[in-house]
């Protein structure tokens, strides 16, 4: 059988009426790709409508499109040059149909941006350029069309070229070529036009032939999202498409985010030779050596190169919904085969694609681009888009409709790699012979974690040390874990990047939990800026965990600046400083809020002591051992 090249997918984009469909129609004609009779048929159609011949009608097949002279929906058509086959995707330019433009553009490997020589760079020229970049498309040629309408003026061509080059330069795209053409008349389409003697560059066809096919994802780490589990016969087959990398029989797969693992026992197929290796792009089915419970949505990887697992992530997204995306709203997120409910934690900035200005807003309008923070109820297996586009992008669904798409970035967020849950599976906890109740009876209070969180300078240390002192004098078994003290010892190996912060808090959570088991009241005094980390600490001992928000605004803390840290952070000498160059996620449902801007130290200490006594101290005269549930 002849080896046949896979067609290269090219999308044609640009502002409404700049001549995209005309370019496609004419290109097909010039390369002899139209079936016999097509041109005659279209001529008859145009005659009947009493209009001059319109090349755009090759693509604009819908009546409504022909009536209005506008492309409504994207269409795809195959064509060939001497070099290779192509699929040409014609996209609509009208803003109203941006969803259709995205539909066409998202699958392309390269693009041609069409700009009308008379009108020059317009709003959708910029928007389309921006979206192509966001979608991950890196090869772009520009054509300046309708050169006949500007008398093939080199000066005009240079002006338009400079304008679009400047815009694209700002978003980090440099066009492979900029070509002056008259699509309707065929100038510089397949052969160099005599009407542009000043132009020495390639024709449109040459520019297409100069594009490179997208690289195979085989070289990236394995990502094999589970699409379904089949049990049609004796086999239990895990089916899915390999999005990147390769797998082979015998590989141990890690399924994220569940953390389960098993080995590939076989690669199944029907009417095909047996395979022992499968690679990116293939839709396969594998059987496993162990019958572990896995479901659609898990992403299989090799143990050494798992995806990240995070409930909080940042995305740059384009919004197509009729109602704006708003902070606090929930949407269904679809990433590979997984679905999660996510809430919009924050709209960080809205980007005006025409001038690249950014604005603050709590919502994102239709067709706009924004950076947002999304939070899921549990960990989502994902990759940053720049690491692996196929598992680093998602769509959002509202009701029945896809309303937006986004690409993921984990900048400034903890990198928690999905880890196999087998670690520690051989451990069994040994039972203590002293019960928590006995300890509580002896101490006359039960144990618990008082988890102070708040900005640097909010007052955590002053409060914790004073509370510790006063509780101690009232007979409490109490100890304070304080940021700097712990960082000098237990956590001296950790820095201040997001991952290290997460690990710092994880260890403190575990240590605090040991104190609680020992029957003590432990006050932790750490900024602990990430909600997820605090939630994890709470999860270690949910019934004895008390989140206390020591609340003061950044401005106030900056003013106090007891350790001179804010000054350094503002000057840029301390990186990743919470409140300045790293986020602080305010508690959503703290057990107690101590507002240190409104209350004096004395008042906050009193409040916290009252809270602790109420919650943890035994009631007078009640014998703790004799209470059946001992859950005072």
């Amino acid at each position, binding site marked *: 059988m002849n080896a046949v090249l896979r067609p290269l997918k090219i999308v044609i984009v640009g502002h409404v009426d700049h001549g995209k469909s005309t370019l496609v129609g004419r290109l097909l004609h010039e390369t002899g790709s139209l*079936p016999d*009779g097509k041109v005659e048929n279209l001529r008859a159609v145009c005659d009947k409508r009493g209009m001059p011949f319109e090349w755009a009608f090759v693509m604009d097949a819908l009546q409504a499109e022909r009536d209005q002279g506008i492309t409504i929906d994207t269409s795809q058509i195959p064509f060939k040059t001497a070099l290779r086959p192509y699929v040409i995707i014609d996209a609509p330019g009208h803003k109203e149909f941006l969803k259709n433009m995205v539909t066409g553009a998202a699958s392309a490997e390269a693009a041609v941006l069409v700009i009308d020589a008379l009108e020059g760079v317009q709003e959708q020229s910029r928007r389309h350029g921006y979206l192509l970049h966001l979608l991950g498309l890196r090869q772009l040629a520009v054509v300046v069309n309708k050169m006949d309408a500007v008398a093939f003026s080199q000066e005009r061509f240079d002006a338009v070229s400079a304008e679009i080059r400047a815009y694209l330069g700002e978003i980090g795209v440099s066009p492979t070529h900029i070509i002056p053409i008259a699509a309707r008349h065929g100038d510089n389409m397949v052969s160099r036009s005599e009407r542009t003697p000043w132009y020495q560059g390639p024709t449109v066809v040459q520019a297409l032939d100069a594009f490179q096919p997208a690289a195979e994802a085989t070289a990236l780490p394995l990502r094999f999202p589970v*699409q379904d589990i*089949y049990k049609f016969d004796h086999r239990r087959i895990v089916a899915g498409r390999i999005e990147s990398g390769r797998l082979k029989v015998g590989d141990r797969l890690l399924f994220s985010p569940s953390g389960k693992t098993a080995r590939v026992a076989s690669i199944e197929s029907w009417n095909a030779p047996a395979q022992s290796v499968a690679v990116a792009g293939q*839709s396969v089915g594998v059987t496993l050596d162990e019958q572990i419970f896995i479901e659609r949505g898990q992403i299989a990887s090799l143990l050494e190169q798992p995806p990240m697992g995070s409930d909080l992530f940042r995305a740059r997204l384009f919004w197509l919904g009729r109602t704006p995306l708003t902070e606090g709203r929930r949407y269904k997120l679809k990433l590979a085969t997984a679905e999660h409910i996510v809430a919009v934690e924050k709209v960080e900035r809205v980007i005006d694609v025409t001038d690249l200005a950014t604005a603050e807003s709590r919502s994102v309008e239709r067709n706009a681009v924004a950076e947002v923070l999304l939070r899921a109820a549990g960990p989502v297996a994902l990759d940053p888009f720049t690491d692996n586009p196929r598992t680093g992008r998602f*769509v959002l669904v509202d009701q029945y409709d896809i309303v937006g798409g986004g690409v993921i970035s984990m900048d400034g967020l903890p990198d928690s790699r999905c880890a196999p849950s087998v670690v520690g599976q051989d451990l069994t906890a040994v039972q203590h012979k002293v019960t928590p109740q006995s300890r509580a009876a002896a101490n006359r209070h039960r144990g618990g974690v008082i988890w102070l969180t708040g900005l640097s300078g909010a007052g955590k240390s002053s409060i914790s040390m004073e509370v510790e002192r006063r509780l101690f004098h009232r007979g409490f078994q109490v100890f304070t874990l304080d940021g700097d003290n712990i960082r000098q010892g237990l956590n001296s190996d950790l820095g201040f990047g997001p991952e290290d912060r997460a690990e710092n808090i994880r260890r403190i959570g575990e240590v605090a939990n040991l104190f609680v088991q020992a029957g003590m009241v432990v006050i932790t005094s750490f900024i602990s800026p990430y909600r997820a980390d605090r939630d994890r600490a709470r999860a270690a001992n949910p019934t004895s965990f008390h989140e206390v928000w020591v609340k003061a605004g950044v401005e106030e803390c900056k003013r106090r600046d007891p350790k001179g840290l804010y000054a350094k952070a503002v000057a840029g000498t301390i990186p990743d400083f919470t409140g300045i160059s790293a986020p602080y996620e305010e508690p959503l449902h703290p057990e107690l809020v101590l507002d240190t801007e409104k209350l004096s130290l004395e008042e906050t200490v009193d409040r916290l002591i009252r809270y602790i006594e109420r919650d943890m101290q035994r009631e007078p005269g009640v014998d703790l051992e004799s209470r059946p549930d001992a859950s005072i």
Partner: protein
Amino acid sequence: MTSDLDALEAQSIFILREAFNRIDKIAMLWSIGKDSNVMLWLARKAFFGHVPFPVIHVDTSYKIPEMIEFRERYAREWNLPLIIGGNKAALAEGMSPDRGRVTCCSALKTEPLKEVIREHGFTGIIAGIRRDEEGTRAKERVFSPRNAAAEWDFKDQPPEFWDQFKTDFAPGTHLRIHPLLHWGELDVWRYIERENIPMVDLYFAKNGRRYRSLGCAPCTGTVESNATTVAEIIEELRTTKTSERSGRAQDKESEDAFERLRQQGYM
């Protein structure tokens, strides 16, 4: 991936598996033509030799007899859960292409299809259309919603990108799923050759003519050809400049005949 056909196949399998997983009541249309035979084959690839949903054939009674023979034989051999639809009432009162080809098509194909969908409560119908066949199909989505009257709102189609398909839809509406949308006619024949997929004899030339597209006898013509094997058909298609549906009369009644048919729920 080794070849372009592997890539086409893998994408179709992915689509079929998405449809099977996401949609409750699903069925596949089997017109007995080359595309639907390939589609059925791809289903057996996707589901490891099984066809885990019903296969619908809408019989207009005007089908060419060889097609019905083929259907009976392979429904048995491949153990297909077959549903045969048809508009008996319209036939009884004399529906035929003489009443207008579009009228006939919608009475004998679209209407019985809608009836089967209603009767069985299907929420997903897999159809083997391709973009390169015709202008409105070139604009189709892989997962394409139809309203409660099975109509296609081609002026406002949902976005579809990154292989994230529209899988949520209102009760009473359904989806058309198009696993072959990205295939070309030549790809189909090359795949038939590679996989050795059985085909109705009508595709192969007799006395200098063959069918390039199969529909109802009165409305589907033959084309001039000497291709008597799959390999010869492939050779022929590499050079031809006539369009595939040139033998199909219902497309030609007026500029928008086919658009109207499809808008009403035709494949």
